[in-house]
């Protein structure tokens, strides 16, 4: 296996509290302590070297909807965004609620994926929220977490049992927090803009009720619940207070939620329709504060590809979601440029924090670790052209945005999975 030396870069490895300019050595697919004789050399002067970035919230759509995205195209998208590991959500067709589907995903990933794909399994059969999926068997088949993402388990008793049961297998439970009765048929944040636009509101409290529920269940089960894509200020406050009490609760935020607000929906652009919806500036500020003080542990994309024709419809009937893997790092680096986060704080949310949550032996540059590495230029200026995306989908609200900072090289298991030409 070939060897690499990445020279003169600023190595940021929060897991080992490293932040210094030094060379990084890769041999045999692992991080090495010293240079190998026949190594290829990469000059990373002025660049940042981090553990390969991890995105724990990605919809690859395969099996079932490979017209929207596939394991091949979705992972290429990830590599271009600097991600070496992604977690595939289980709302495929069929749902990842059975070992066969998990085996299929793993096999397809082995054949065509250019980054590591870790499947998440369903909490309930067919994500219907009625009966538990075979969680133990899913764990054996290789899932790293369970979630009904896209759906939210409404039955509190069932959710409690799912968490208790998953604890037995050391599996964290991730939840898309949405009370269906309260959110009803809302399509955007309930507030001034929904009132002005005549669109049905999806109020923040529909998320907060479930965040509060999850905190209580995490507390009584003493087990880990991860709240996916937080969007509201009160959700952040609930998680902050629970963490202070030592509850096993964690949270993620998506770049679109901490970058945009509900005002941007005013042109009825369906690429601004996502679930949970974009909220107010106060909510956005609360997400930034939550990221800064560590209440929000992880940044994830909720990469949700849809066909162009599916999005070119009335706002009410368009599917929720946007693609995000290629713009995620730049939109997050903006928080460093804006001095919301330090670089090591940001890298932590993309590396060791998600690795710890899902017990992945990833997210670090320790000697002997898998050589998953991302080389980042934090100040490169570029324009996102969604027509050039590696995704099959084009549903990004960030098309033509001028961005600052991007991945330059993505290395998976010691091999270059992608590099900027």
């Amino acid at each position, binding site marked *: 296996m070939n060897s690499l030396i990445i020279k003169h870069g600023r190595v940021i490895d929060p897991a080992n509290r490293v932040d210094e300019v030094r060379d990084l050595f890769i041999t045999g697919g692992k991080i090495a302590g010293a240079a190998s004789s026949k190594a290829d050399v990469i000059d990373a002067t002025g660049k940042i070297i981090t553990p390969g970035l991890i995105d724990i919230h990605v919809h690859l759509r395969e099996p079932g909807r490979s017209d929207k995205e596939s394991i091949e195209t979705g992972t290429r998208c990830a590599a271009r965004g600097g991600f070496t590991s992604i977690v595939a959500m289980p709302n495929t067709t069929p749902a990842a609620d059975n070992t066969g589907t998990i085996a299929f995903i793993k096999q397809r990933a082995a054949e065509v994926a250019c980054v590591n794909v870790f499947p998440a399994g369903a909490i309930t059969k067919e994500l219907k929220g009625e009966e538990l999926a075979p969680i133990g068997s899913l764990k054996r088949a290789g899932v790293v977490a369970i979630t009904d993402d896209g759906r939210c388990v409404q039955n509190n008793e069932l959710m409690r049992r799912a968490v208790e049961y998953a604890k037995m297998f050391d599996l964290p439970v991730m939840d898309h927090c949405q009370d269906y009765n309260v959110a009803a048929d809302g399509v955007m944040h309930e507030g001034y803009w929904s009132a002005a636009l005549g669109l049905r509101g999806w109020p923040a409290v529909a998320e907060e009720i479930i965040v509060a529920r999850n905190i209580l269940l995490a507390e009584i089960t003493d087990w880990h619940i991860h709240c996916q894509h937080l969007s509201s200020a009160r959700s952040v406050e609930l998680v902050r207070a629970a963490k202070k009490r030592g509850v096993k609760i964690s949270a993620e935020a998506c770049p679109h939620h901490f970058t945009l607000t509900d005002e941007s929906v005013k042109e009825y652009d369906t690429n601004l329709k996502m679930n949970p919806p974009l909220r107010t500036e106060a909510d956005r500020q609360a997400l930034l504060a939550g990221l800064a003080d560590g209440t929000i542990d992880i940044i994830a994309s909720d990469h949700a590809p849809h066909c162009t024709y599916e999005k*070119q419809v*009335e706002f009410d009937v368009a599917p929720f979601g946007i693609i995000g893997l290629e713009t995620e790092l730049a939109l997050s680096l903006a928080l460093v440029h804006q001095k919301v986060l330090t670089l090591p704080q940001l890298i932590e949310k993309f590396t060791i924090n998600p690795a710890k949550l899902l017990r992945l032996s990833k997210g670090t540059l320790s000697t002997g670790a898998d050589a998953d590495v991302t080389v980042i230029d934090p100040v490169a200026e570029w324009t996102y052209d969604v027509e050039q995306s590696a995704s099959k989908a084009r549903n990004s609200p960030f098309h033509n945005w001028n961005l600052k900072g991007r991945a330059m090289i993505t290395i998976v298991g010691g091999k270059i999975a992608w590099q900027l030409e």
Partner: protein
Amino acid sequence: MKRWQRKDLLGIQELSVAEINFLLNSAQAFKQVGKRSVKKVPSLRGKTVVNLFIEPSTRTRTSFELAATRLSADVINITANASSLVKGETLKDTALNLQALHADVIIIRHSAAGAPHFLAPLLKASVINAGDGAHEHPTQALLDAFTILEKKGKIAGLNITILGDILFSRVARSNIWLLTKLGANVTLAGPSTLVPRVFEQFGCRVTHNIDDALRDADVVNLLRIQHERQRQTLFPSIGEYTTMFGLNKERFARLKPDAMIMHPGPINRGVEIDSEVADCERSVILEQVTNGLAVRMAVLFLCSGGQAVES
């Protein structure tokens, strides 16, 4: 303002005061046309106007159809049941097909807010919003303003109360934009679940006390309770609504003596309005319908590129 610049009429929110006045003045000229023995003018001869109604409507569709006919346009009506939309064709494809047939104006009524805004940039044809979900119904607001001006001589400074289901009402939104732009004092009233406080941010007064809402009103615009847009949880029953917020004879008697009653129709007698109140001389409900025709002729004429009304 000398010329009308817009291809489309999507809403009131984006219009300037000058544009609103230009439309209302043009409607005044068309109202005179309606009083002649020959009510037809050749302004849109050779033009094709499509009434694309994806949500049921009788009064607005008829009004637009008659307006286009009186302008000598060829008119086709497409309703949701008859169209291919039920076969799974997208709205975009339906509209592009109509354009391929050289439609010059597409009048759209749709249950989804923003549907006309979605179509307008895709089409060379003019797009006229005849009501999109709970968003806007610009020609209704224009005909309401036209009627108020005709009866009261002004809008600025009037106390105008809009009573009923504000949350789900496109008529309310278009009226709010228009009346506040023209300087009226707008009060919104009805149950707290249908008239949320967020509407104060539109420059309106919000009250849930019916007597407070009616006391100083110069104009009361009653809205129908929109059963089809509502969930069960918003208020207990139609009966309770009538008791708490219906314009009954007692409440009517306490109004200012010159207060005017408006309603966009269809009215539900005995629900939001007492039957006799609906028919009384201070009710202008049918005049609104007449004025709607003039307003829609003006809108079709101007958006099709017409500038001066032919005499």
